[in-house]
C-alpha cells in the first residue's frame, strides 16, 4: 500500500498541485516517524509504570520489543525510499549497518575507552592517580590470590575439559552407546553455571564428623571409613573443586566439536597405521592428535576465554569467600560493593589484557578453518 503523498510520476500538473503534493509528501514523511515514535514511547511508559498482571506485561514487552525494532527498520527504509535515488544509495547502507555500529559503539567501544580512562583515577573518578590502581591490583593480597586462582581455572579448566573431551570423543566413537553418552555428557552445557552450582552443592556438602553426610563425596569417604572433608573452605583445593564444575559443564562442548573433527580423519591413514603395526595408543598420539590439532586449539582457546572471565560459579558457590575470588568477582565487588570505580576499572582492563591474545589466536585459527 502506497500512502497518498507518495504517488510517483503523476500526469503534468499546475504549480499549485505540485506544491500540494510536495507538502503532502513532507507531511507524510514527517508524520510516519512521529506516529512510530509515539507508539514506541507509549509502550515504554506502559512497561515501566504499569501495575498490570505480570503475564500481561511480559507479553506486551515481548511484542513491543521485537515489533519495535522491526518497525524502526521498516520506517527508516520507507523514509530513505522517499529520497532522490542518489541520496537513497548513499544513506541506505547506513540504515542497514548503522544500528549495529551505533549499539556496538555505545556498549563496547566507548565503555572500553571510558574504563581505560577511569582506571587512572581514584575511587570517585575525581583525582588522577596514574597507575596506582594497577599497582594496587598486582600487590594487594586478595588480588594476588585472585590472579593465582584465575591461573588455576585457566590451566585445569582448559586442560581437563579439552583433554577429557578428546578422550571421551575417541572412546564414544567405538562404543554402541555413543548417542546416549554424547547427549548426556553434552547436556550440562544447557544448564546455567548457577544451576550447576546448586547441583554440585549436593556433591561437596559437608557436615561435621559423626553427623549424617548428605553430600555425595563425603558419603563415599564415609563408606570407606574416612573422616569427612570440608571441601569448599580449604584453599587452594576449593578453587580446584569449583573448576570441576566448569569441567563438568564444558567437556561435552569439547567432545562434540572434537568428535566432528575425528570424523574428518581419513580412514586410510588409520588403516595404514594399523598395518604398520602401530598400537591404538600410538595411532591416537601420532595420527589422530596431529590431524585434528587446529580444532583442539580452537576448543582449548574457547574454554580458556571462559575460564579467564569466570564469574557465576564462584559467585554462586562461595561468594568469593575462603580465598576463591577471581578477577571478575573482585571487579564486581570493587565496582558495586565498595564503589571504587578506579580499581574496578583497572581490574576490567586487566581482564581485557588477559583475554585479548587468546581471542586473537582463537579467531585466527577459526578463520584458517572456515575460509
Amino acid at each position, binding site marked *: 500500500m502506497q500512502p497518498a503523498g507518495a504517488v510517483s510520476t503523476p500526469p503534468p500538473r499546475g504549480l499549485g498541485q505540485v506544491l500540494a503534493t510536495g507538502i503532502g509528501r513532507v507531511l507524510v514523511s514527517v508524520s510516519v516517524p512521529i506516529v512510530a515514535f509515539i507508539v514506541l514511547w507509549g509502550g515504554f511508559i506502559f512497561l515501566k509504570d504499569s501495575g498490570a498482571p*505480570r503475564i500481561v506485561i511480559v507479553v506486551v514487552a515481548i511484542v513491543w520489543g521485537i515489533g519495535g525494532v522491526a518497525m524502526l527498520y521498516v520506517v527508516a527504509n520507507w523514509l530513505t525510499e522517499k529520497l532522490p535515488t542518489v541520496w537513497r544509495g548513499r544513506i541506505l547502507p547506513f540504515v542497514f549497518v548503522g544500528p*549495529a555500529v551505533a549499539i556496538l559503539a555505545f556498549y563496547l567501544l566507548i565503555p572500553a575507552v571510558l574504563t581505560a580512562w577511569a582506571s587512572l583515577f581514584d575511587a570517585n573518578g575525581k583525582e588522577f592517580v596514574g597507575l596506582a590502581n594497577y599497582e594496587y591490583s598486582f600487590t594487594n593480597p586478595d588480588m594476588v590470590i585472585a590472579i593465582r586462582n584465575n591461573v588455576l581455572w585457566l590451566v585445569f579448566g582448559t586442560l581437563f575439559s579439552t583433554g577429557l573431551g578428546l578422550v571421551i570423543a575417541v572412546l564414544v566413537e567405538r*562404543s554402541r552407546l555413543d548417542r546416549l553418552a554424547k547427549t548426556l555428557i553434552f547436556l550440562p552445557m544447557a544448564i*546455567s553455571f548457577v544451576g550447576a552450582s546448586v547441583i554440585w552443592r*549436593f556433591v561437596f556438602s559437608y557436615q561435621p564428623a559423626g553427623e549424617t553426610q548428605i553430600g555425595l563425596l563425603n558419603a563415599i569417604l564415609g563408606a570407606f571409613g574416612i573422616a569427612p572433608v570440608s571441601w569448599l573452605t580449604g584453599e587452594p583445593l576449593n578453587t580446584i573443586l569449583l573448576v570441576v564444575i566448569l569441567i563438568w559443564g564444558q567437556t561435552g562442548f569439547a567432545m562434540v566439536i572434537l568428535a566432528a573433527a575425528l570424523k574428518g580423519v581419513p580412514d586410510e591413514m588409520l588403516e595404514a597405521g594399523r598395518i604398520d603395526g602401530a598400537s591404538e595408543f600410538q595411532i591416537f598420539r601420532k595420527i589422530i592428535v596431529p590431524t585434528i590439532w587446529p580444532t583442539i586449539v580452537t576448543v582449548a582457546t574457547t574454554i580458556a576465554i571462559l575460564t579467564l572471565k569466570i564469574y557465576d560459579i564462584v559467585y554462586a558457590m562461595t561468594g568469593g569467600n575462603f580465598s576463591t575470588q577471581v578477577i571478575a568477582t573482585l571487579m564486581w565487588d570493587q565496582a558495586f560493593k565498595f564503589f571504587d570505580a578506579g580499581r574496578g576499572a583497572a581490574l576490567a582492563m586487566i581482564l581485557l589484557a588477559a583475554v585479548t591474545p587468546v581471542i586473537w589466536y582463537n579467531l585466527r585459527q577459526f578463520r584458517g578453518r572456515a575460509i
Partner: protein
Amino acid sequence: MRPIKWSRVAINLTVISLIVVWTVPTIGLFITSFRSKDAIYDSGWWTIFTNPQGAFTLDNYEQVLFGGDGLATAFLNTLAVTVPAVVIPILIAAFAAYGFAWMDFPGRRVLFITVVALLVVPLQIALIPVLKAYLAIDLNGTFLAVWLAHAGFGLALATYLLYNYISQLPKDIIESASIDGASHFTTFRRLILPLSLPALASFAIFQFLWVWNDLLVAQTFLGTDKDVAVMTSRLVSMTGSRGQDWQLLTAGAFVSMIVPVAVFLGLQRYFVRGLLAGSVKG
C-alpha cells in the same frame, strides 16, 4: 578375535562409568527436589533407593513457585528478557551482515574490522560506564535496558558469524533480484532472511542459552528486586540469604533448567551445527 572383544568390553564399561559420573549429580538434585526438608537433612538422597517411604512431595515446587520466593514471577521475567534479547540482536546483526556483505559504501572495511575487533572486549569493561549512562537517563531496571545490553554484548559475534554466512550466498541470486527491480530491503526480507535460516537458528539457540542462563548482565542492569529479577538472580540470593532452605533451592534450580534443557534436547542438531560454525561466545 578374543582380545578385540575384551577391549570393546573395556571401552563400553568406561563409557558407562563416564555416563554415571556425568549424570549422578543431576539425578541427585532431581531426587532431592521431591524430598521434604527434614528428609534432605536427615539422610542422603541416595537412601530413597533402600528406604523409599515418604520420599515424594511436591511441596518444594509449590512453595518456591508461588510462595514468598515467587519464582513464577522470576520465570516470567526471564522469558520477557530472553525472547527479545535473542531476536533483537539477530535482526540487527543480519541487517548489518547484509550491509557489509552486499552494499558498497565509504568506510565499509574500517567499520567491519572495528566490529570484529570488538570481539575481544569482555562485557565486564562495559558494566560501569553503561550503568552510569542508564542511571543518567533513568533506564536502568527496565527490560529495554537488558535487551539492549545483551544485544550490545552479542552483536559483534552475531554480525561476524552472519557475515561469514551471508557473504557466501551465491552472487547471482542477489544480482538477479536487483535486476528484477527489488530494493535492498525487499531482497533482504524475501531472499536473505529465508536463505540464512540455518545460520540464524544456530545463533539463536546459542544466544538463547546464553541469555537465559546469564547472571551478570541481568543482575547489573535489571537488579535483584523480587519483582523484576530473573531466575538466576533469585537462585543466587536464595543460596546467600537463606542458605539452609535447600529443598527450595533444588526445586528452584530445576524450574530454571527445564526450558533450556528442553530447547537443547529438541534442537540439539542445530545447536551442534552452530557450534561447528564457531558460534562460541568470545
